[in-house]
């Protein structure tokens, strides 16, 4: 997921200036860079949707039978949104660098992990709804 997060300064350079530092490889076709940027924006929208979900949980759910469960769900969604945003910029920068160097694009397990986390959350909510309906 965050295989590049070893040397902090290098990672920050890569995030803020993926095309300039390091000055390696060749400038890719701008259409590839813009496609990479749109993928980044799609991930940012995913992050924003998680943030909106977290804030909506805290503001619109009634207090749940377990103390602070509502706040716990909200904070979990907000933290997940933050992680998605950080991972989005890291992946964007690593892709930009790979395109300059002409190497393989970075592979990532993150989409699978996020899908499993969301599916697990949905399953837990379904169980909660069923328990509430029949007991």
């Amino acid at each position, binding site marked *: 997921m965050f295989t590049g997060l070893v040397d902090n300064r290098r990672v920050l350079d890569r995030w803020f200036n993926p095309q300039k530092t390091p000055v390696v490889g060749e400038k890719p076709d701008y259409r590839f860079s*813009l496609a990479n940027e749109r993928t980044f924006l799609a991930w*940012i929208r995913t992050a*924003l949707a998680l943030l*909106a979900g977290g*804030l909506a949980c805290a503001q619109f759910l009634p207090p749940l039978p377990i103390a602070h469960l509502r706040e716990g769900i909200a*904070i979990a969604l*907000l933290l997940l949104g933050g992680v998605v*945003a950080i991972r989005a*910029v890291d992946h964007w920068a690593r892709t930009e660098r790979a395109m300059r160097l002409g190497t393989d694009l970075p592979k990532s397990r993150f989409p699978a992990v996020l899908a499993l986390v969301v599916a697990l959350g949905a399953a837990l909510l379904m169980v909660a709804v069923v328990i509430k309906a029949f007991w």
Partner: protein
Amino acid sequence: MSPDPGASAERTRLAWRRTGLAATAVALLAARPAFAPGAGPGTYLAAAAALAGWAALVGLAYRRARGLDASPPQPGRRAVTAYAAITVSFAILGTVLVTL
């Protein structure tokens, strides 16, 4: 420079706009507690921070659109990182707001 048949610049501009709309929803939700009856100063501060962050995001997208208008379009650089950083700040602000 021939016109871009794939309309990448335009599609990217629209992607920035969609993202801005999603950010607007988050900013409004973060500002909402300040308008509840009996809101404390913490919620006022959070609302001010949320609106300032929203303005920064809109400004970034606006500047980025100018880079996309160039020919050939300029790829995004710092605007991308700054956008992610402000999104992370919204996550932190939201967490503070929920624990308030």
